[in-house]
């Protein structure tokens, strides 16, 4: 009975109610969206690298090293010598090492020079290893293994020939045109930056830069390498490498040894600790963002109360008639609260729909341009509690117009004013 009344009364005032609903929907979607993105970004970042004990690069801050080596964001401060990589990776405590040489790209996707150990030892998510959707790992120079997104976006198949460019921009004017690469493998999707990477061997990186001087192609025709020369190519520099240790207890000791390595200034980081530092730095921004969103939400709720209060005047007669036909004051209180509840619930519903819809639309974009894999379902353990708190807040604020209705005397509404 009350529900029917509430519904029909709302329908009667659908113009203003719709606007209230819209502003509430947007602010709830904003709140849930920011909360969701925050958690999903954390999850996505954390699952990008797993099982790697240390990442080693040239001396720099740990965040910089983490970002360029794992997330392919930003650039290295310096290169490190291949000889020192060999020296450190033969340390008795080291179980495996993955070398990485960055700095080239293919149509906006970064190229990583590495070796077969990358496919053998790299782990992501819950200790999952990389697997091939098609083909296999590269075995010699001029062969390339593509990440899932690269292959899909650029429509490459096994056997296709591609050309790498120097530098990491989307459009490059210096291309390694004379040395095409053949696609020999395509990795299965991982939901990490690996999907956006183009993998070649360290020797290939060496081969395409052979004869270059000072970061530019040398003059004259480049000497064409024969097979034996290709076999003899030796990498000289790397950008970074990942280490897996035999015993986790040794982690900090090895980190200290690398940081104090005399032959070259190096930095070794624990990916987990570097990520934790990143979250600490971002916590402030996160909290500000949540605070702003909460304020927007409260503004929207106050807006709802304001429209209800404004409607009180024109509804005096309606309320009085309800009282006249026998409604108790508490029933009127409940009626208004029910209206508030309906508006809030409808807003939450449409906010969730809006969010799911926009996430589903934005998902491919986020994953291809930022390497962030965001689930389209904005629901977490605490979301129900959050929404319940939101409803409670709405009802609390809604109590103001409800109480005023409750207080209103019968006479006030029925008296015909002139």
């Amino acid at each position: 009975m009350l529900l029917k009344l509430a519904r029909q009364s709302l329908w009667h005032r659908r113009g203003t109610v719709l606007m209230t609903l819209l502003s509430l929907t947007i602010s709830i979607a904003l709140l849930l969206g920011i909360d969701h993105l925050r958690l999903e970004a954390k999850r996505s970042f954390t699952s990008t690298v797993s099982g790697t004990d240390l990442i080693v690069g040239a001396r720099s801050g740990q965040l910089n090293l983490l970002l360029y080596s794992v997330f392919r964001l930003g650039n290295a401060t310096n290169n490190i010598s291949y000889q020192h990589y060999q020296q450190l990776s033969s340390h008795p405590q080291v179980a495996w090492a993955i070398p990485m040489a960055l700095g080239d790209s293919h149509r906006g996707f970064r190229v990583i020079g590495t070796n077969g150990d990358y496919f053998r030892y790299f782990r992501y998510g819950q200790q999952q290893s990389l697997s091939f959707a098609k083909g296999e790992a590269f075995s010699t120079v001029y062969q390339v293994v593509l990440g899932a997104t690269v292959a899909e976006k650029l429509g490459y198949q096994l056997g296709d020939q591609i050309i790498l460019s120097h530098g990491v921009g989307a459009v490059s004017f210096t291309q390694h045109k004379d040395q095409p690469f053949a696609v020999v493998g395509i990795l299965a999707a991982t939901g990490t930056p690996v999907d956006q990477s183009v993998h070649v061997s360290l020797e290939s990186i060496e081969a395409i830069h052979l004869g270059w001087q000072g970061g530019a192609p040398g003059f004259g025709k480049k000497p064409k390498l024969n097979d034996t020369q290709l076999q003899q190519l030796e990498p000289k520099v790397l950008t970074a490498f990942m280490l897996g240790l035999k015993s986790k207890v040794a982690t900090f000791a090895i980190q200290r040894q690398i940081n104090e390595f005399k032959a070259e200034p190096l930095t070794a980081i624990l990916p987990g600790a570097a990520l934790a530092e990143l979250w600490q730095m971002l916590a402030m921004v996160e909290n500000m963002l949540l605070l702003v969103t909460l304020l927007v939400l409260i503004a929207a709720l106050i807006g709802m109360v304001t429209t209800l209060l404004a409607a009180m005047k024109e509804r005096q007669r309606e309320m009085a008639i309800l009282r006249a036909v026998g409604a108790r004051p508490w029933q009127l209180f409940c009626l208004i609260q029910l209206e508030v509840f309906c508006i809030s619930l409808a807003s939450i519903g449409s906010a969730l729909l809006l969010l799911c819809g926009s996430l589903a639309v934005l998902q491919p974009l986020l994953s291809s341009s930022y390497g962030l894999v965001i689930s389209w379902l904005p629901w977490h353990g605490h979301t129900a509690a959050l929404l319940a708190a939101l409803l409670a807040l709405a009802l609390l604020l809604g109590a103001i117009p409800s109480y005023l209705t409750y207080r209103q005397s019968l006479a006030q509404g029925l008296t015909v004013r002139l």
Partner: protein
Amino acid sequence: MNTNRSKKCWSGALSIVVMASMMLGAGLAQAQQHNEHGAHQHGKASLTFVLDGNEAELVLTTAAANIVGFEHKASTDAEKQQQQQQLEMLKSGSWFALAEAANCSISGHNFREEQGEANHADLYVDFQILCQAPLKLSDISFSLFSQSPALESIDVQYLVNGEAAVAELSAKNAVLKLIR
């Protein structure tokens, strides 16, 4: 005439620059090793803790002044005694306590004093620890802040069964709660 002289002057200056840069280049090429100038911070120490299975290791690195209380070379008897006492305290491991329930004991320790430049000494101490019930190791409390008043905070990086995290400890917040 005038211009001629200035030209000569320029070429002279240029050759000096070239020579100097060549010398500098040679100097750099000879430097096979580099010296580390680690961050030497007063009031701050850094600590790493790792637990894997039932083995653990706890390492503290700090400027000597944080522990001893002064930076200059101990000269008077009182200073020497204070230095001795504080270093013994640091080596004994009496400045931290692992949660009782984990039933841990120190199985070995190393101590190193690294003399930096201009009396800036750094202390390094590590403890190998064995725990009978590592799953119950929920926290580590530090009494170092009261034992070494010059110490203000400790930056902690820890790794418990593969999960890394960071924390900052101070006199007011001297218990490291291990998240796992």
